[in-house]
């Protein structure tokens, strides 16, 4: 316990620190408002966005300089940076979506943006964590933030219900998670992934306690990423939360939880793969199938996207089931693709909302192609990509993940997943059918007030990246494996 030997290298957590600093800066900026006037208020989102961009630059710069610190409690390797970029993408697009949206929902924008940044920081820490205690704290940081953000619209009953439901079930799940962590600690004497792995290798671990712990951990994780059968909160919370928050939630929680998931299973439980691989595979199959089947009969767009998000969690889990490098890289690719296409889809939902609402029926898209052909085109890109139709990002993401599954000997799982994406195609296609072929009704319109410049930017960025990631998938893998320089060089070489 010699303090001189302590490793306090902050590099591993630099991006997360950046986000915390940005959050503090936004709070300070907001403090200037307290005089009664609000001279800095319009600057808050842009300040937050600047923080996100700086942090993203930091993350990219850190690629290729892996380091572990804090006595092995956190690392930053390429995958941690890739995860950071997924979370930061989600955060940046969420901030853009919020510029117009949030002032109508809740006046306290300063707290809102700093919470978004802090939640992102929590997610990023979770992606870098290599200790169950750090995972737990990070999980709680972003969960608490999201409970609050879900209940942001206090004048709306459904919002506060969503917050309450999310909180109660989330806290319940946390208890399971931490109980599982306790058993893993009990079985191995440590909470650090590498030490757990060592204990298992050396045969020092109690297998029964460990399996009880792992089962409880999976239940806790399952709640966070809404795996079937731990998914029942998802539709209501997604529907009730303010739409930008829902969008952020759907991407960020998946990214963070899956990162922790894979680190735990590959680093701590590497020797136990045979016993938990099948469990994960069954969970993945259930999650995909039930998510897609339930999505078939939704009329609310947000509920539909909620169930589709459950299904996508299942697809991503397929990548993790393999516990091998291709599966995990595939899952990361899936996450970034999902970040863009899902953000786009939620931006479309925002466009369709009316004053005081936080959801829209799918029928509002009926015939929208007649009135808003550009919007219809963008929405088509997002929905086709979510369905996994080439050449959009969603297709390559599925392909990558399922390839890993086949490689790992999980061909049956890949087959189930492919059949599921055919089911998924049905409900996404139904929306597209209605956009183009149904007759427009009085409901088919978008309110001028929803159509703001930041929203347009979000839509365009999401669409551009959804197409670009599908056509040039190597950009992402190169970026997160060897950094920006290699992408530029690679791009020049490809010419």
């Amino acid at each position, binding site marked *: 316990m010699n303090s001189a030997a302590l490793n306090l290298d902050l590099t591993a957590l630099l991006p997360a620190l950046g986000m915390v600093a940005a959050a503090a800066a936004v709070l300070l900026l907001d403090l200037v408002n307290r005089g009664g006037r609000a001279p800095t208020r319009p600057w808050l989102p842009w300040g937050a966005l600047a923080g996100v961009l700086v942090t993203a630059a930091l993350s990219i710069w850190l690629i290729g300089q892996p380091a572990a610190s804090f006595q092995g409690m956190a690392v930053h390797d390429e995958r941690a940076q890739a995860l950071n970029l997924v979370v930061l993408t989600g955060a940046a697009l969420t901030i853009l979506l919020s510029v117009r949206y949030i002032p109508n929902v809740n006046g306290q924008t300063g707290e809102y943006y700093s919470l978004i940044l802090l939640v992102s920081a929590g997610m990023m820490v979770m992606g870098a964590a290599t200790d169950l205690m750090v995972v737990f704290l990070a999980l709680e940081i972003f969960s608490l933030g999201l409970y609050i953000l879900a209940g942001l619209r206090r004048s709306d009953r459904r919002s506060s219900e969503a917050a309450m439901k999310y909180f109660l079930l989330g806290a319940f799940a946390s208890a399971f998670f931490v109980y599982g962590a306790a058993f893993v600690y009990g079985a191995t004497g440590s909470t650090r992934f590498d030490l757990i792995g060592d204990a298992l290798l050396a045969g020092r671990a109690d297998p029964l306690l460990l399996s009880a712990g792992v089962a409880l951990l999976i239940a806790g994780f399952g709640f966070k990423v809404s795996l079937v059968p731990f998914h029942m909160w998802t539709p209501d919370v997604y529907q009730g939360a303010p739409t930008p928050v829902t969008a952020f939630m759907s991407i960020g929680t998946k990214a963070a939880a899956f990162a922790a998931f894979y680190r735990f299973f590959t680093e701590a439980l590497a020797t136990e793969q045979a016993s938990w691989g099948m469990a994960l595979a069954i969970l993945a199959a259930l999650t995909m199938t039930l998510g897609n089947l339930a999505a078939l009969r939704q009329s609310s767009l947000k509920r539909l996207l909620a169930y589709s998000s459950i299904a996508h969690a299942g697809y991503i889990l397929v990548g993790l089931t393999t516990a091998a490098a291709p599966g995990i890289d595939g899952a990361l690719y899936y996450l970034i693709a999902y970040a863009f296409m899902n953000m786009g889809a939620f931006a479309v939902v925002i466009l369709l909302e009316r004053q005081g609402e936080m959801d829209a029926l799918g029928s509002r898209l009926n015939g929208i192609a007649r009135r808003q052909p550009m919007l219809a085109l963008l929405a088509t890109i997002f929905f086709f990509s979510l369905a996994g*139709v080439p050449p959009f990002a969603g*297709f390559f993401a599925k392909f990558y993940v399922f*390839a890993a599954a*086949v490689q790992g000997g999980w061909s049956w799982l*890949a*087959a189930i997943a*492919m059949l599921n994406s055919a089911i998924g195609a049905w409900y996404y296609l139904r929306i597209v059918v209605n956009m*183009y072929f149904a007759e427009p009704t009085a409901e088919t319109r978008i309110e001028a007030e929803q159509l703001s410049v930041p929203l347009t930017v979000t839509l365009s960025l999401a669409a551009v990246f959804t197409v670009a990631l599908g056509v040039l998938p*190597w950009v992402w893998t190169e970026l997160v494996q060897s950094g920006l320089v290699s992408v530029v060089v690679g791009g020049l070489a490809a010419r």
Partner: protein
Amino acid sequence: MALSIPYLLTVITFLPLVGAVLVTLVPSDGTKKWLALATTGGTFLVSLLLWTNWQQGEAGMQFVEEAVWFAPLGVRYALGVDGISLFLVLLTTFLMPIAVYFSILYVHKRVGAYMALMLLLETAMLGVFLSLDLVLFFVFFEASLIPMYFLIGEWGGQNRVYAAVKFFLYTFAGSALMVVALLIVYFSAGTFDIVALQNTPLPMAVQTWAFLAFSLAFAVKTPLFPFHTWLPDAHVQAPTAGSIILAGVLLKMGTYGFLRLAMPIFPQAAEQYGPLLGTLAVIGILYGALVALVQKDLKSLVAYSSVAHLGYVMLGVVSMNAQGVSGAVLQMVNHGLSTGALFLMVGLLYERRHTRLLSEFGGLWASVPVYTGLFLVVAMSSAGLPGLNGFVGEFTIMLGAYSYSPVFAVLAAAGVILAAWYMLTAFRKLAQGPITNPANDKANLKDLNAGELAMVLPLVLLFFVIGLFPNLFFDKINPSVEAMLATRSALIQQATAEQMPVLAETVEEQ
């Protein structure tokens, strides 16, 4: 011929895509129409370079282009063309200007989107025929669904949305398992390279599953009986130009898939399941013809005749001998031309009378002789009259099929008779007898004008060219087909040779 273009295949494939972008950018409908026509025409002209710069007698891939697309999975951007795909590419680029020109005359609703989708479709179709990488193939294969889906759903007939959705879901679901299969193949063989895969022996278990999954995808696309039920819906509802392209090119993607991928890459599985596919093909031939016989709607008659014709193609593919396969390749082109032309003729009539019911017509000889005469030629080409293109293809296929299985050949020959029967019946109802409906009077019904003739005549001309000088085509097709068959039988021999020593040892032990 000195003229050559670098990256010729990429240019051919993506020229229509560029056109599609331009079409959405230019302002007026008129410009959009003519720009689309210019793009398809230009693509056709550029694709003629494939013919002029062709290395005669060369069996392998020509004009090959290669680049890494996605290294972690070994996915490449690789294009190439050989004797098997050459004429399908030319068929595509040739039919597109005709389809676009027809649309210029008769499509007035949301022209820009329509033309852009047509051009996107062309890129996707060309990509399918030119891909040398399984994943690239699959991407184009699936991407072709999107524009066709919108073309049927937006510009089609009464039940267009139903037909469009059925079309999309059938084909999408059909190819879902193909993804898994091609991944299994990749991890077994270590490559997505189509040419390399044709030379790679695969374990029998892999072959079986992959062959079945690929076959399902292609059987839906072709469509092979009993996976054909989407086709009549799609055809009847599709706009005329959509039908021309659907029948002329899109269906070939299925048979091309069988020929390029399923049969040569999984030779033993193909041997094993060949009889099954052959049976389905023969059932398709007879079933399609019989159903066509009782159709009241001219367009669904042509649609069912497509099911029958593609049965021939499949029979040729299944027989896997030089005649059968070469015949199948040529017959794919023939079917594209003949059925495309038939849909064109039906479309021309429909635009005049806004009905396709045979009972509404009669006595057209008297009122529109040029149209009727050309219709007869087209119908005869489709029915396989000697001297026209259909005969050459079907006859060659029959030869191949006979040496594969005489029973199949005899049954398929019965299909030829049925084809003549339904075509002639349709023609009789359409053209002969007295004019019973005043709408068919000379005064009310206009004959083809110059613009319409310009669409039909090139097709008819090609019927004769292929029918009279088939060797012009076989010369380019045969080397590639023979090379493919040789590689394939080498693979089979290698596999049996590997089993033989085991057998020999067991014999010795006894």
